């Protein structure tokens, strides 16, 4: 056995330490190890038939996502972070950003009341009471926001609230790009 072999354990350990350091640095910069990436990026919005939130009986399907780039915001009244992001969504809607709302595993009357009280930034509000569209979208918590292009293909999934900072840094540039593509 050559002498160099004795250095193998040390080298292996230092490689491991490098992996840990990288992860710790990322964690301290706000990286969340529990965040999951979406496997639906590049795929079309799954097929669905859901009712309008305020008007039961009025049905929509995945065709509503075709035609122009849209945000799909998954929210619920039992979700405190959704409450926090709601005002900013109103602001964005006011600026012309097109958002469709997906009310996820919630109670209809509470949801409608909430939108009446806090303002409604959504072009269309879908009611996903049993969460099955959420399951097809790979939703694992609220709020989540999807960026969907003009062809109805999912291009990005954002976990957590939408706020001025992440809108400016990440989401707006992407949205603008989708708008430019659509032209």
């Amino acid at each position, binding site marked *: 056995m050559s002498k160099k072999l004795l250095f193998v354990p040390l080298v292996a350990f230092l490689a491991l330490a490098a992996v840990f350091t990288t992860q710790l640095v990322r964690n301290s910069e706000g990286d969340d190890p529990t965040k999951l990436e979406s*496997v*639906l990026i590049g795929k079309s919005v799954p097929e669905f038939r859901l009712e309008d939130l305020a008007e039961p009986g009025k049905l929509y399907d995945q065709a509503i996502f075709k035609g122009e780039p849209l945000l799909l915001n998954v929210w619920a009244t039992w979700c405190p972070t959704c409450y926090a992001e709601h005002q900013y969504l109103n602001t964005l809607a006011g600026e012309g950003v097109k958002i469709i709302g997906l009310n996820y595993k919630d109670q209809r009357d509470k949801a409608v009341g909430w939108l009446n009280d806090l303002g409604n930034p959504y072009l269309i509000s879908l009611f996903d009471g049993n969460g099955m569209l959420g*399951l097809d*979208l*790979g939703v694992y*918590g609220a709020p989540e926001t999807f960026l969907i292009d003009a062809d109805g293909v999912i291009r990005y999934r954002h976990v957590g609230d939408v706020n001025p900072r992440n809108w400016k840094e990440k989401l707006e540039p992407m949205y603008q790009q989708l708008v430019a593509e659509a032209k």
Partner: protein
Amino acid sequence: MKKWFIALFAAMTFSMAAQATIEVYEFENLQQEQQFKELGNTLRCPKCQNNTIADSNAELAQDLRHKVYEMTKQGKSKDEIVDYMIARYGNFVTYNPPFTVATSILWLGPLAVVVLGFGIIVMRSRKTKKIATDEKWDQDKEQRLKALLDEENNGDKQ
């Protein structure tokens, strides 16, 4: 064994992540029930992340359990159901990792240890064998050695 009717889901409030939800499902045969149980222990809850969907109290886990139940009753196989979940939640959702180039080290790593280790053992013994045969050794010495060893057997075996 008596069969019980399907019960409505028991909603757990104020629950700790580690406490299992106990719901009642009905199946047509033992095989379906076993498949359901196996899947419950293979699929991971994307919300709590530290439990299988069988052990998690999260509503999402409940939804996933219900979906697995539905698909099992429809006669779908274990693989089909796992693939369905992976198509929506990614490989994260199953505790059974896929075999890809990146994950191959899971199996190749220990294999390499075993192969390398045995390789060293065999090579070492060949080297010492070579050294031994270089010296003068013959039947006579071998017999004397054997006799000696047998005599000292007990102490040596420790």
